[in-house]
């Protein structure tokens, strides 16, 4: 609890690191995100595009350095 009001109209403010741990989403129990085939293909294309772009940038920088 970050802050609240007690019976005497006072507020208690607690630093996050001093506060009691909060219950968060159990991400490990959720497992991998379900992805359709089209999403998987899009991500693969993105990866290929990224590799190509990185190579182009490296090439461009080497050319500029000459």
């Amino acid at each position, binding site marked *: 609890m970050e802050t*609240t009001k007690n019976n005497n109209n006072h507020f208690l403010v607690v630093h996050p690191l001093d506060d009691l741990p909060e219950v*968060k989403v159990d991400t490990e129990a*959720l497992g991998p995100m379900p992805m359709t085939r089209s999403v998987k293909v899009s*991500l693969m294309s993105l990866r290929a595009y990224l590799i190509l*772009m990185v190579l*182009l940038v490296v*090439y*461009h920088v080497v050319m500029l350095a000459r």
Partner: protein
Amino acid sequence: MTDKALALTDAGVQDVMPARGRVVKSKWSRDLLTFLMVFGPGLIVMVADNDAGAVSTYSQAGAQYGTHLLWIVLILLPVTYFIQEMVVRLGIATGKGHAAMIYQRFGKWWGLFSLIDLEVVNFLTLVTEFAAIDLALNKLGVDPRYGVPLAAAGLVFIVLSGSYRRWERSVVFLCLLDFAWFAVAYRVGPPMQQIVKHSLVPTMPPGGITPDLMFLVIAIVGTTIAPWQLFFQQSCIADKRLRFADVKWARLDTFVGACITITAAACMMVVGTASHAHGFNFTDPAQMAMDIGTYAGPAVRNVLLLLMINAAVLGTTAISLSSAWAYGEVRGWPHSLQLPVRKAPGFYALYLLSVAAAAAIVLIPRAPLQLIILGVQVLAGVILPSAIIFLQLLLNDKELLGEYANKPWNNWVNWTIIVVLFILSLILAAQVTAPNLFPSAAGGPAT
């Protein structure tokens, strides 16, 4: 501080628990104090983004194109805020870092790719940070053979306290030193009327759209919104254990940080403009400081050089931590600044290794620094759309985020940003593969 805090239930104060808190009497004080306690990750991620590469890129933009590109920097204010705000929600809702999220929700294969992208670009960026420290120390008359290892030792020292709070306070102090950019820009910059006009009215520099201009624009975008920021802020929020109730304050922290960093970026561009207006050719920011010092005085020169070192130090600590946090999350190592070295040896060793290796490379004979810096910024700009797409997919994961998932308007804004980033990277690709399609710069640099 009270020694004991109170465990709270719906009925109010009920029990004494082993925690600490501060009692205040008004809602206003409560809100201010809560904000100050939450404040940190947003400011640090934003101000650290104005690292050595950013100083170099913005001042080069000013030196080549005057204040004509200020409007682009202003547009990047909402862009950088929207992207980092998503990270805030993701970090608070899950309590875990970005690398861990990608690993757990997209699987090992994608997790590994994201991690490799991050670690490679981060390391290259770290090299540029130390290169900038080396350059600035040289100009200050300090031998880099001693100064660079000393800076590296200082950077290691500030994380070794075993206290997140001590680290955060030290870094927030360094962030506040960035306000000196405002004073320098005011002292040497062009008339305010010109700055306001070019900030609010989009204009093209004389010479139109050229490959050099596009390269610089992509570098500006790449330096203002960098992939490491996503990883850093989420891990930082997780390490600070921000709570659901802190979301609005963490957003405000991020917004304040975005405003400061964008204004400081504009100041760097203005300083670059001033250097060119006095007839100096831009080679690197350290030389720019020397040039400006010839007419503005040695105090301004030294302040500029120290600001350059400060920018590099801030960038180094944030980038090295984002690498160490991400690797620790993926490997399942203990990875918190709250832990002493003996309890998180892998996490601290990776931080140390990143800093030491980058510092060592810089002490090897000189490379074309300005080109390396610009190249790394462009590389970050190219990788960014991919990183944001993963972020976008995670933020639409209602199973993961529930009420904190993106709203339709968030998605519209973010997809627009992603499309613009892709267009910029495609233009870069076209320039490299078919340079003849783009005219060369006709006129000289603007002022």
